[in-house]
């Protein structure tokens, strides 16, 4: 996932204003291009030694995009108008039937709703918790580097292993949650086996894993805020809360946009956690879109229908990202 242009340096030093998402990177780009062009007037790419190597060095990357992304994306588009079970010799043309079926598919609608709920829950958790963690990790305290490392541990671990750990934590019999509750004399709920709670258990697990990563992004944003802003505000008599509300929050806007955009993109694609912890259950309560897609493709071998699901999901993510930039990106320098 990508593209924070937080050029705050090594996470320690200051730097230029908060590294916002795809927003700031555009500005970095346009700043870089004229610089190069200014140094040497832009000419057309001629077949010189230099330009030949320019082609050659970009060619492998382009070839990979074309072969391993371009082809699958085109092929999935083609398949979405066909019916195919991987075994039969050739896909069979069905026109818009897959998309038409999708519109009336209540299970798909439900999985889309559940994905949206998951995304909403995890994004809200992540913004609040990561910012709080980043503020805490930004303090000048002893051993702060040690805490920063710890905060980052879950983010480098495999979702599968994490899923298994939390599967046990939520186990109704010998899980940590209910053992603790039993210690307090309360019989805990059945967590992942409870249709109302299961999705939120996944949210908790995903939040636990990802807070550290997003806190790192927020921390870089915090550290890129010029300290003279705070000094000036203090001279004007602003308190800690005032500083936070009037300086930190507005200046973190690009970083926050990045966090929200990335979180939404990632959450809409949640799969491994669901696969390991619930397999979509209980009673389909945690079936998210990508899991539904996976089932259609690799359990029922409905490749055409799965491709249609994939295209609709991509469309949803794309539109949501555009909306976020429209809504929250207004004051982000582009």
């Amino acid at each position, binding site marked *: 996932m990508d593209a924070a242009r937080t050029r705050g340096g090594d996470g320690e030093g200051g730097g230029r204003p908060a590294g916002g998402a795809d927003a700031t990177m555009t500005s970095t780009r346009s700043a870089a291009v004229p610089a190069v062009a200014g140094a040497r007037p832009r000419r057309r790419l001629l077949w010189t030694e230099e330009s030949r190597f320019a082609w050659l060095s970009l060619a*492998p990357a382009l070839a990979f995009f074309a072969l391993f992304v371009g082809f699958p994306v085109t092929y999935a588009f083609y398949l979405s108008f066909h019916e195919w079970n991987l075994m039969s010799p050739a896909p069979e043309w069905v026109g818009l039937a897959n998309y038409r079926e999708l519109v009336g598919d209540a299970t798909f609608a439900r999985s889309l709703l559940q994905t949206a709920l998951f995304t909403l829950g995890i994004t809200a958790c992540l913004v609040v918790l990561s910012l709080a963690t980043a503020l805490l990790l930004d303090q000048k305290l002893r051993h702060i580097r040690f805490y920063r490392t710890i905060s980052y541990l879950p983010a480098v671990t495999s979702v599968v292993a994490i899923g298994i750990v939390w599967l046990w934590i939520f186990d109704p019999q010998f899980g940590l949650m209910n053992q603790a509750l039993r210690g307090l004399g309360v019989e805990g709920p059945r967590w992942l086996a409870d249709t109302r709670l299961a999705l939120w258990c996944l949210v908790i697990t995903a939040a636990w894993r990802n807070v550290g990563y997003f806190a790192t992004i927020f921390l870089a944003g915090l550290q890129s805020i010029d300290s003279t802003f705070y000094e000036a505000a203090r001279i004007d008599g602003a308190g800690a809360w005032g500083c936070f509300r009037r300086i930190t929050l507005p200046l973190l806007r690009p970083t926050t946009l990045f966090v929200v955009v990335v979180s939404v993109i990632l959450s809409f694609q949640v799969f491994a956690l669901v696969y390991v912890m619930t397999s979509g259950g209980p009673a389909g309560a945690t079936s998210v879109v990508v899991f539904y*897609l996976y089932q259609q493709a690799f359990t029922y071998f409905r490749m055409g229908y799965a491709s249609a699901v994939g295209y609709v999901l991509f469309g949803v993510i794309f539109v949501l990202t555009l909306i976020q930039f429209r809504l929250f990106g207004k004051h982000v320098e582009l």
Partner: protein
Amino acid sequence: VRRKGRRRLGQGALHALLWLAAAFVLFPFLWIAAAAFKTQIALLSGAVLFTPVLTNFQEVLFSKTSEYLDNFVNSIVVGLGSTAAVLVIGTMGAWSVNRARWPSWAVHGVMAWAIVFHMIPPITMVGAWYVLFRAVGLYNTHLGLILAHLTLNLPMVLWILSAFIREVPVELEEAARIDGASTPVLLWRVIVPVIRPGLLATSLLAFIFSWNEFAVALNLTAKQTATVPVAIAKFAQEFEIQYTQMAASSVLSLLPAFVLLLLGQRHIVRGLTAGAIK
């Protein structure tokens, strides 16, 4: 530099908060590590105090029926292979995009594509990869998964390395050119040494990603080439779950990422904030 006044008073509270947060992060790891050293009976009885045993690790690593060592080797081969390849392709690509005189629409196109790419769920591409790989005999091979992970990592690598390459002074390249360096020499002798921190960051991130990747590995591998995450997930779906052995294999799967984080944290953080990834 913020608010020196109340800081001393607040320091105790902040330390307490940090401790609490750290405990919250560490406890699940400790819990699973403890389970890995327990006998099945000790685990199921919920014993807090127990005599640690190594049998789980022995079973997982050396038992004749266990394929965990193979999975481990598969993960390492795929991780190293895809990381090495993506570094080479990514460095050349990032240099070309940023420093060769491409028209700006082409540059913006490549970079924008690298972002839009992340909105495509990898699993939508898996179907096509599966068909393609079956046709050319790459299904269930290390090379197949290496190519897939390379593809998934390439946009991120292009982004991060672009950030580093843009900071290499153009004058440095020009000086090398005046000295008569050809482009490959320039790339290898001038660019690569200067962006070494970026390369380190990228390689750590790319390896960790590959090590942890699940959805694609699940569908492009079978028994012989299954990676660690795939093996662990399968573990969880067996009829009779060996909880303690599952814990031991999870612990083993976490170790490489932990070690890499501890060794290269500074670089990882720098890579994330310079180009950022998931």
